[in-house]
C-alpha cells in the first residue's frame, strides 16, 4: 500500500474563509491594539511635560516603546491565529474526509471482490453447465438430425407410393405434410429456444407420426422423430432449470439488472429476468466485450466492466465468468455467465453515507460523493442528476490520475460552488489488485471551514482543553505567546503606574495613559484567549464528530461484510445436492458434497470451515474435517445457533451467532457462525438440515479497525489511538492495540456507550490505565444485518 499523502500545493488564502463572527472579532482586536499606539504617543509627550529629568523622560519613553512593540506583536499574532486556525481546520478535514473517501472506495472494492467471488461460484453451478452442455450438443447435431429426418421423410413419401399401403392419403398429401414439417428446419434456434415454436413443431410432427403409425415399415422414421422431439424438449427443460436458478440468485440479490448465460459462441441460453427472455434468448452476444473477455478468462478470475443497457437509466457493472465442465474444470470453456448489477442503486446508500443531511434526510446541498474509473468516467454518484454515471466529470488532473492507495484534496470550484474535493484511489484487494476506481467526496468550503461547532459535552476546563493533544501544536504555541504578551503588558502597565505614583502630583497625567494601556491590553488579550478557547473547543468538537464517523465506518464495514456473507449462504443452502444427500446419504454422495464444500471454502477463504448438518445436529460433511474434534460423533443439536437455524425457513434471514464453536473448532480463534436451514425435499416438509459456515472475522476485523484509526494531518495514525470492537456484553472482540485494550476482556466505558440504538453514535471522556482518552462509539445498524448481533466499534484517542 502506498501511503503517500499528496496535498494541494496551492495554499489558499484562508482569510476569505473566515466566518463573519471571526472577522468582526479580528477587526475589533486589531482596532483595539491600534488604539493603544496614539495613547503611547500621548505618554511620550506627557513625559516631556511632567519631568525635566532626561532619565525620567527616557524611562517613560522606554515603557511606551515596549507597549508599542507588544501591541504590534499581538496584532500580528491575532492575524496569524486566524490563518493557523483555518489552515489547521483545512488540513484536519483533509485528512479526515480523504479517509472517508478511502473507506468508501475500499468498501466498494470489497463488494466487487465479494461479488466476483460469488459470480465465480455461480459459474460452477452444475445446472448451468448442464444447460450449456445440452444446448451445445443439441445445437451441434440438430442440422444433421434435420437432414437425417428429411431423408427419412423421403423414404416415407416413396413408400406411400406403393399401392399396397392402406391409406386415404396420397403421396401429394404426404409431401405437403413433410413440407410443413421441414419448414421448421431453418428455424433451428427458435425450435431450441422458443417453447411456442417448439410446440407448433411438435404438434405437426406428432400428427404426422400418428399417421405414419397407421402404415407399415415406418418404425425407424417414427423412432427418429420421437428422439428429435425429446432432444428439443430437453433443451426447453434445461433452459427452464437454468433460468429458475438465475431467478433465484437475482431474488437473493435484488439490485441485479439481469444474469445472462451464453454458450461458447456468445448465444444467450438463459437469463434471470422473465420479461426480457423473449428478447434475449438466442441473441448473439459474441461481439460484447464482457462476453469475449469471459470466454478468455482464467478459471480463478472474474472480469469486471461497465456496460450500458438500453432499457436502464444507469449503466451496469458486469461481472462475467466462464462456465466450465464441472467434471473437468481445466477443460475448455463451455459458456459464460454475466451478472449485470445495478451498482448505482446498490451503493447509493454507501454514497449517501457520512454526508451531512438536511432536515428531510437528503444530503446537504453541494455535498457529492461519486466514483470515477481510470478514464475519469463516473461509475456511480450520490446525485445522478448532477453527476451522471457514464459521463466524464470535470475534475482537476491530480484527482483523475491517482494510483492505488494515493489520496489528494484541493480547493476548486465544483458545480459553480467553491468546494474542497477529497479523492482517494482504492488501495487494491489482495487477490484482484483493486478496481482502480477513485472515490471523490466534494464538500462546499463554507461547510468545512465555516461549520458551526457546538460546545462539546466533554466538560473540559480551559487549561485541560489547551493541554489536549487534539489541539494543534501551533495553537498551543500561540496560546503560550499570548500569555507572555499579556504578562508583559501587565508588567509595563504596573511599572508605569508605579512610576507615575512615585512622581507624585507630577505623575498624575501619566496615570490615565497606563490605565488605558492596561484596560486595552487586558481586553485584547482576554478576547484572544477566549477566541483560542473557542477555536480549541471547535477543534475538539470536530474531532469528536470525525471520531464518531470513524467508529461508524468501522462498524458499517464489518456489518457489510457480515451481511454479504449471509446472503451467499442463503443461496448455497438451496443447492439440490445438499438436500439430496441429507435425505438419502450414501458414502459416495457424502464424499461428493464434502468436495463441493471444499470447493466453496477454497473460493471463500474467510470461512474457517463449512459444515453440513442433518436435522439431528450431526455433522455429515464439512470442508475441513481435520479441524473438527470427534467428527464422527459430534452433535450440535443443543447449540443455540443450530436450534435457531433449524427452526427457520427459507424466508428467514440467515442466523448469525457468536461463539459456541470452541469445542467444534480446534483453533483458539473466535468465529461467527452463519447458519441456515436446508429445505426438505417437498415444499411443506420440515428442514432437511443446516448449512453452517464458521466465519473467520478476526482477520477482517483487524484490517477494518486498522483502517479506521484516526489520522493526523500528515495522514499517519495518531500515536496512542486504539480501535476495537465489542459485543453486546461489552467484551472486547478485537483490538488494534492489545496491550491497551485486551481482547476477551470487558471494557468499562461509560454506560451511555452501550445504551445506543441501531445506527447511533456517542462520545465521551474516558480514563484507561491513567491515560485520558476521547472514546467514540458506534453501534451496528441491525436493519442491515437483521440479526441483532449488536456489535459496537470504539475509537479511543489520547486526550492529554
Amino acid at each position: 500500500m502506498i501511503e503517500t499523502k499528496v496535498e494541494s500545493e496551492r495554499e489558499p488564502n484562508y482569510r476569505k474563509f473566515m466566518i463573519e463572527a471571526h472577522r468582526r472579532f479580528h477587526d475589533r482586536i486589531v482596532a483595539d491594539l491600534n488604539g493603544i499606539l496614539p495613547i503611547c504617543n500621548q505618554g511620550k509627550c506627557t513625559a516631556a511635560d511632567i519631568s525635566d529629568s532626561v532619565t525620567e523622560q527616557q524611562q517613560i519613553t522606554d515603557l511606551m516603546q515596549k507597549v508599542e512593540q507588544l501591541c504590534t506583536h499581538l496584532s500580528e499574532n491575532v492575524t496569524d491565529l486566524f490563518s493557523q486556525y483555518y489552515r489547521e481546520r483545512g488540513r484536519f478535514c483533509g485528512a479526515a474526509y480523504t479517509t472517508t473517501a478511502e473507506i468508501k472506495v475500499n468498501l466498494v472494492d470489497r463488494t466487487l471482490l465479494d461479488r466476483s467471488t460469488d459470480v465465480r461460484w455461480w459459474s460452477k453451478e452444475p445446472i448451468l453447465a448442464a444447460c450449456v452442455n445440452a444446448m451445445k450438443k443439441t445445437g451441434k447435431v440438430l442440422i444433421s438430425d434435420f437432414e437425417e429426418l428429411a431423408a427419412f421423410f423421403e423414404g416415407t413419401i416413396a413408400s406411400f407410393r406403393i399401392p399396397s399401403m392402406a391409406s386415404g392419403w396420397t403421396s401429394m398429401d404426404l409431401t405437403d405434410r413433410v413440407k410443413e414439417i421441414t419448414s421448421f428446419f431453418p428455424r433451428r434456434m427458435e425450435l431450441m429456444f422458443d417453447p411456442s415454436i417448439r410446440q407448433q413443431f411438435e404438434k405437426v410432427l406428432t400428427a404426422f407420426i400418428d399417421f405414419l403409425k397407421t402404415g407399415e415399415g415406418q418404425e425407424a422414421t417414427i423412432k427418429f422423430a420421437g428422439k428429435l422431439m425429446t432432444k428439443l424438449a430437453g433443451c426447453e427443460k434445461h433452459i427452464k432449470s437454468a433460468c429458475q436458478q438465475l431467478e433465484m440468485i437475482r431474488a437473493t440479490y435484488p439490485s441485479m439488472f439481469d444474469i445472462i448465460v451464453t454458450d461458447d459462441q456468445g448465444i444467450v441460453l438463459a437469463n434471470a429476468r422473465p420479461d426480457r427472455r423473449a428478447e434475449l434468448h438466442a441473441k448473439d452476444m459474441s461481439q460484447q466485450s464482457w462476453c469475449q473477455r469471459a470466454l478468455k478468462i482464467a478459471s480463478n478470475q472474474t472480469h469486471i466492466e461497465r456496460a450500458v443497457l438500453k432499457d436502464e437509466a444507469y449503466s451496469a457493472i458486469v461481472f462475467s465468468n466462464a462456465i466450465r465442465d464441472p467434471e473437468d474444470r481445466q477443460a475448455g470453456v463451455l459458456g459464460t455467465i454475466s451478472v449485470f448489477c445495478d451498482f448505482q442503486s446498490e451503493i447509493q446508500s454507501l454514497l449517501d453515507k457520512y454526508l451531512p443531511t438536511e432536515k428531510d434526510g437528503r444530503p446537504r446541498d453541494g455535498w457529492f460523493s461519486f466514483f470515477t474509473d481510470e478514464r475519469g468516467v463516473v461509475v456511480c454518484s450520490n446525485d445522478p442528476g448532477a453527476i451522471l454515471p457514464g459521463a466524464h466529470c470535470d475534475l482537476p488532473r491530480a484527482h483523475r490520475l491517482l494510483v492505488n492507495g494515493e489520496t489528494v484534496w484541493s480547493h476548486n470550484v465544483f458545480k459553480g460552488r467553491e468546494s474542497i474535493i477529497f479523492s482517494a484511489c482504492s488501495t487494491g484487494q489482495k487477490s484482484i489488485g483493486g478496481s482502480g476506481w477513485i472515490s471523490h467526496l466534494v464538500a462546499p468550503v463554507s461547510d468545512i471551514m465555516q461549520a458551526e461547532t457546538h460546545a462539546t459535552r466533554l466538560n473540559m476546563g480551559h487549561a485541560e482543553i489547551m493541554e489536549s493533544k487534539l489541539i494543534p501544536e501551533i495553537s498551543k504555541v500561540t496560546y503560550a505567546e499570548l500569555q507572555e504578551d499579556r504578562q508583559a503588558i501587565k508588567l509595563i502597565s504596573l511599572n508605569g503606574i508605579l512610576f507615575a505614583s512615585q512622581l507624585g502630583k507630577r505623575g498624575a497625567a501619566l496615570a490615565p495613559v497606563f490605565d488605558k494601556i492596561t484596560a486595552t491590553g487586558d481586553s485584547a488579550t482576554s478576547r484572544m484567549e477566549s477566541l483560542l478557547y473557542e477555536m480549541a473547543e471547535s477543534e475538539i468538537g470536530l474531532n469528536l464528530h470525525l471520531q464518531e464517523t470513524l467508529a461508524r465506518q468501522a462498524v458499517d464495514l464489518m456489518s457489510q461484510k457480515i451481511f454479504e456473507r449471509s446472503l451467499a449462504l442463503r443461496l448455497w443452502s438451496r443447492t439440490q445436492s445438499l438436500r439430496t444427500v441429507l435425505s438419502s446419504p450414501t458414502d459416495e454422495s457424502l464424499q461428493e458434497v464434502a468436495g463441493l464444500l471444499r470447493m466453496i471454502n477454497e473460493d471463500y477463504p474467510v470461512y474457517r470451515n463449512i459444515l453440513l448438518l442433518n436435522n439431528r445436529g450431526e455433522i455429515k460433511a464439512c470442508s475441513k474435517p481435520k479441524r473438527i474434534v470427534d467428527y464422527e460423533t459430534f452433535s450440535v443439536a443443543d447449540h443455540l445457533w443450530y436450534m435457531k437455524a433449524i427452526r427457520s425457513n427459507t424466508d428467514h434471514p440467515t442466523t448469525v451467532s457468536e461463539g459456541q464453536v470452541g469445542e467444534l473448532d480446534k483453533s483458539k480463534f473466535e468465529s461467527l457462525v452463519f447458519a441456515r436451514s436446508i429445505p426438505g425435499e417437498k415444499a411443506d416438509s420440515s428442514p432437511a438440515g443446516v448449512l453452517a459456515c464458521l466465519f473467520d472475522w478476526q482477520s477482517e476485523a483487524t484490517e477494518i479497525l486498522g483502517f479506521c484509526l484516526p489520522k493526523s494531518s500528515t495522514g499517519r495514525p495518531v500515536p496512542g489511538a486504539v480501535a476495537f470492537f465489542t459485543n453486546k456484553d461489552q467484551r472486547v472482540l478485537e483490538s488494534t492495540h492489545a496491550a491497551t485494550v485486551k481482547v476477551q476482556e470487558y471494557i468499562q466505558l461509560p454506560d451511555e456507550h452501550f445504551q445506543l440504538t441501531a445506527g447511533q453514535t456517542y462520545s465521551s471522556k474516558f480514563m484507561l490505565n491513567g491515560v485520558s482518552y476521547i472514546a467514540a462509539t458506534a453501534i451496528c445498524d441491525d436493519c442491515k444485518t437483521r440479526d441483532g448481533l449488536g456489535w459496537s466499534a470504539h475509537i479511543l484517542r489520547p486526550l492529554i
Partner: protein
Amino acid sequence: MNERIFTFWVGEQIYGMPLLMVGEFCPSMQLTTVEVGDGRIPSVAHVRGTTAVVLDMRKVLGTTTQDSDPTQKDRVFILAQDQLCEEGLNNNLKTYEEPIVLEMDRLGSILDVDLHELHPTPSHLTAEFYRGVIQIQSGDLILIDFSTLIECLAKELQKASG
C-alpha cells in the same frame, strides 16, 4: 483616607501592600539559592547591582494550596527604607533597611483603597502583620503591614538560630 496599593495572589487569597514601597515589578531576575535553613528565604536576587533577600510569600503566609510553577512566579522588588520616594516618606511608609524581593504566585493590579473601609482581621488570622481586610470585587483583600512582617520574621529567625 485613600491608599494606593498593589495586590498579589498567594494560593486562592489576594493580599495587598502599599504601592510606593515598590521599586519595580520584575518577574525575571537573577537568583542565587541560599541555605539559611529557612524555606521562607530560598534565595537572594540581584537587581540592578543591588542584592536583595527573596521572601517566598507562600511560606511566609503559610498557604497550604498547591504550589504554582516556579518559573511562572511573579516578583516585586521592595525598596529599602532609604530608597523610598518622597511620596512614600510623606505617607509614613516603613520598609526595611535593605531592599527585599517578594516572590508570589501571581501579581494582581493596582488599586486605590479607602482605609475607612478596613475591617479588623478575622480571628483565624493570628499573625501580627495583618492590617485588616477590605472587600473588593474579587473577594476579601488582606492588607499586610510590611515592616511588621519583616520584624516578625527577623525575630523568628533569631529565635531559631538560638
